[in-house]
């Protein structure tokens, strides 16, 4: 086989191979090809998405570390910092849901750990194909027609495996999984999405970087032994899943949360030593990518001795050792002479720990085997040398007809006969609440330990965002994660805006001020012009919204090639966001608190209602036009919610708050009733049932206030020119509307049984 053919088998293009030869001034040997193939894979190099990521704002007054390290860092108060990042494990989870998801959790945790922070929370955003419907409990109501059994079962199996995998890893290592979201859409049938986010906390002075520095300093490999796991995993992640999974199966990595937990404790102990220069986890690419990245950051070179690496399998070749993606490993750079101290800590915790190399002056990554150099590549060539693919995103003029259901508004899109009659809001609401995308996710989050570490003040299922206290401090952290791919499918620019806005709303609902973003861009094959266009549009929308709120993106991840021969996933940006609540006492609950409280809608009072779950459930239509978000209004809404909530250090005027998202107004109202079983008398006679009650347009909150706060409340809204309307009064145990009522209990039953596997 020629070198070029070999390069192509490594997933490198002819152009890339040529660039490698130029950078080296010679042809690479096979080991070097392996190094390049991983470093230059989409997963590690971001070659197709780099230019889009540049569009995102990354600076702000709290930013201590933006993109470029293992995780982003924001400064909080009293020298506390929050570290966070999101990571995808989509392809591995599609092949082996349990281990794929479990190792995804392990991976993102080590990114946080690499910054020197103790991980304090996990969140997960999951996307699967449609499930076969779950019948209403006790024969009440009718169940919708079957959605094609085989696929529904497959999606259910993936869901079960993924959730069990996340639980397996997260529970064992004692990090609470406090939030996330789950949607079910046909588009994710062949490519499920598993994005996990981890949040860590540390003092500013403890912050670490993934850097190697100081010629002669030692490189340590710690954690698990190296085996033949996932060889070529990162390049595997860069190819379409084209029915080749069978052959690729030996690549499955098995997570070991027990070792992961030991690695956390040992590493946090090691971070206390002043001789630690830098550390990094071994993720995708293993020893072929992490050490050169550390060297690149420190502007040094690195040499490692392959025979010093402890192995799990017999007769591993240098190629296999270097490309192995065995989990639960980290690389440390420590001062020469201090290595024994570090080895001792790791061995105390029962982990492997060995000196495998050193920092060198020449800026190359040198692999030695028994004293002989067997590969040597300039660090910069590996880390930054990849040429950007030439594909251009077509202008939106050329592609706008590709938008989901351009121009269609409800009246033209829908069959003449609505499924529900005018008197049918009760059945419609029940059915919507029973949709797996909207219904309770209790089945999922009860499998996750969400109370360990005893900081979870608001946990999963209780509010729009989770709230974590920091022991000994007044302030608290709010965290949220999610994103709606359907909106981006219909209108990627607007969808990108909404992904950011919705996260902002979630944080504002608990009373917290949003301070920073992490994101994962999940897309199909970027060599497809339509996909590239949607990626470009989505990122522009996200950037626009973030700028409006002055929010920085400090970390993120990109997952491309999420498509099969049959299906592409929707363009799916997942946004993770952190909010700061200055005084935890001032948190705002989601649900109705007291009878007699006044109920208001704040924000945009009417709009186009496309892309709604209502359209999907009742008309099997993914379509309609999206109402464009008014970012000026959003900015005022943010200020209003901060003034009404507890973020300003005073006690909130609000008794409860909830944003309106999937399902629209009535779904949000019903959800507000579940916490205490309280109902409301609603005055909504002027709203049309289908669009008004169930439409999904942006920029809306439902809040309740005690009657005595009415004038102060109105004053704030008027002064900032934010529209609002009275919706009714909290009362009784029923939702009452248009002279009809339904008990909150009955709604809750429909909601709770939506996902009962």
């Amino acid at each position, binding site marked *: 086989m020629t070198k070029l053919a070999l390069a192509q088998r490594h997933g490198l293009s002819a152009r890339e191979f040529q660039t490698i030869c130029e950078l080296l001034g010679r042809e690479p040997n096979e080991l070097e090809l392996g190094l390049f193939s991983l470093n230059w894979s989409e997963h590690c190099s971001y070659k197709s998405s780099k230019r889009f990521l540049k569009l995102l704002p990354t600076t702000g007054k709290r930013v201590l570390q933006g993109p470029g390290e293992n995780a982003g860092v924001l400064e909080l108060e009293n020298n506390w910092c929050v570290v966070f990042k999101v990571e995808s494990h989509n392809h591995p989870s599609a092949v082996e849901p349990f281990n794929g998801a479990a190792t995804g959790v392990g991976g993102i945790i080590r990114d946080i750990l690499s910054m020197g922070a103790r991980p304090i929370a996990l969140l997960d955003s999951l996307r699967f194909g449609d499930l076969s419907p779950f019948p209403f409990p006790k024969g009440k109501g009718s169940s919708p027609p079957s959605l094609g059994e085989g696929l529904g079962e497959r999606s259910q199996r993936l869901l079960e495996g993924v959730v069990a995998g996340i639980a397996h890893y997260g529970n064992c290592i004692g990090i609470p999984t406090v939030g996330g979201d789950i949607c079910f859409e046909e588009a994710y049938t062949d490519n499920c999405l598993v994005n996990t986010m981890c949040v860590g906390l540390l003092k500013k002075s403890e912050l670490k970087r993934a850097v190697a520095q100081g010629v002669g300093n030692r490189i340590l490999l710690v954690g698990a032994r190296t085996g033949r796991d996932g060889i070529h995993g990162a390049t595997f992640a860069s190819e379409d899943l084209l029915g080749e999974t069978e052959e690729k199966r030996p690549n499955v990595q098995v997570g070991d949360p027990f070792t992961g937990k*030991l690695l956390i404790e040992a590493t946090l102990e090691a971070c206390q030593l002043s001789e630690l220069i830098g550390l990094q986890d071994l993720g995708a690419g293993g020893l072929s990518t992490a050490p050169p990245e550390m060297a690149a950051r420190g502007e040094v070179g690195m040499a490692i001795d392959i025979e010093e690496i402890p192995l799990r399998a017999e007769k591993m070749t240098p190629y296999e050792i270097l490309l192995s993606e065995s989990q639960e490993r980290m690389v440390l750079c420590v001062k020469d002479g201090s290595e024994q101290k570090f080895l001792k800590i790791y061995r105390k915790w029962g982990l492997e720990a060995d000196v495998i190399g050193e920092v060198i002056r020449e800026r190359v990554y040198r692999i030695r085997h028994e004293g002989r150099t067997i590969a040597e590549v300039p660090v910069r060539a590996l880390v930054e040398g990849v040429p950007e693919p030439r594909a251009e995103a077509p202008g939106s003029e050329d592609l706008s007809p590709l938008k989901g259901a351009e121009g269609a508004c409800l009246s033209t899109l829908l069959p003449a006969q609505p499924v529900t009659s005018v008197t049918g809001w009760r059945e419609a609401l029940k059915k919507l609440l029973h949709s797996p995308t909207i219904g309770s996710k209790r089945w999922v989050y009860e499998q996750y330990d969400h109370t360990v570490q*005893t900081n979870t003040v608001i946990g999963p299922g209780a509010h729009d965002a989770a709230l974590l206290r920091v022991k000994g401090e007044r302030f608290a952290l709010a965290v949220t994660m999610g994103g709606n791919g359907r909106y981006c499918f219909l209108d990627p620019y607007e969808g990108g805006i909404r992904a950011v806005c919705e996260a902002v709303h979630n944080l504002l609902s608990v009373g917290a001020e949003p301070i920073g973003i992490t994101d994962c861009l999940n897309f199909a094959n970027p060599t497809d012009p339509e996909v590239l266009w949607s990626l470009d549009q989505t990122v522009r929308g996200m950037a626009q919204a973030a700028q409006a709120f002055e929010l920085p993106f400090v970390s993120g991840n990109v997952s491309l090639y999420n498509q099969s021969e049959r299906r592409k996933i929707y363009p799916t940006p997942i946004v993770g966001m952190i909010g700061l609540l200055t005084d935890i006492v001032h948190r705002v609950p989601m649900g109705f608190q007291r009878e007699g409280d006044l109920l208001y809608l704040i924000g945009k009072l009417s709009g186009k209602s496309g892309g709604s779950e209502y359209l999907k459930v009742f008309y099997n239509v993914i379509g309609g036009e999206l109402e464009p978000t008014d970012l000026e209004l959003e900015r005022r809404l943010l200020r209003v919610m901060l003034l009404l909530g507890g973020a300003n250090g005073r006690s909130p005027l609000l008794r409860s708050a909830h944003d309106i998202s999937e399902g629209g107004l009535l779904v949000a109202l019903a959800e507000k009733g579940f916490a205490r079983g309280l109902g409301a008398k609603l005055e909504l006679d002027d709203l049309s049932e289908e669009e008004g009650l169930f439409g999904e347009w942006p920029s809306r909150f439902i809040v309740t206030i005690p009657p005595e706060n009415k004038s102060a409340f109105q004053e704030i809204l008027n002064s900032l020119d934010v529209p609002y309307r009275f919706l009714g009064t909290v009362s009784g145990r029923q939702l009452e509307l248009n002279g009809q009522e339904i008990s909150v209990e009955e709604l809750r039953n429909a909601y709770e049984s939506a996902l009962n596997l």
Partner: protein
Amino acid sequence: MHAAVVVFPGSNCDLDAYYVLKDLLGIETTLLWYRERDLSEYDLILLPGGFAYGDYLRAGAIARFAPVVQALPEYIEKQRGLVLGICNGFQVLTEAGLLPGALAPNINRRFICKSVKLRVENAYTPFTQLCREGELLELPIAHGEGRYIASEETIERLKRNRQILFRYYEENPNGSLESIAGIMDETGTVFGMMPHPERNCERLLGLGEGLKIFQALAQALTPGPSPVITHGRGVAQAG
């Protein structure tokens, strides 16, 4: 009083328990490495929740051989102090044979994390003396292997000696026999429970009912006259 919270490889509620004892109750508390054998310093040995040794094989199966657990029989024999096992700690105590029975995988075969109601079945113990009999406590559970199983004779004996301190109330989340959530040994000094009292010790996290258990311990272990310390045969008597 001096408390020890044991740290096994894989413990993950050790710091939570430490926080309650040390920061909330101001008790002198040491994080005790699992290789330690000398327990003579400590009035309370707390085996925390988590996944000691990853819970591989069975929860607690490997941890029971840890030196610190091997030292427990003597500690108990000598009536040196109290032993509290929470969740994984309870599993370790049953595996070690220091409490009767076993904890099998939950009947629904899944991990369960939620808040449950417990009924106090015996309030005359150093662990429950600040509760009323029949009182309901709401505490979080978070476990995959919490289904309490024991032979009929064992269950009979537990009942007769009033060694069942907590039962799940209304809903039995994991399929435990007799809805058992926590049991004490015959000496009245060793107590294991699946729910996590340390996770509900402050109003911020619930009603704070879990604190009663730690306060009760502290009271029982603080020198001075205390009518309810029931070392030895006190248990049956108190019933």
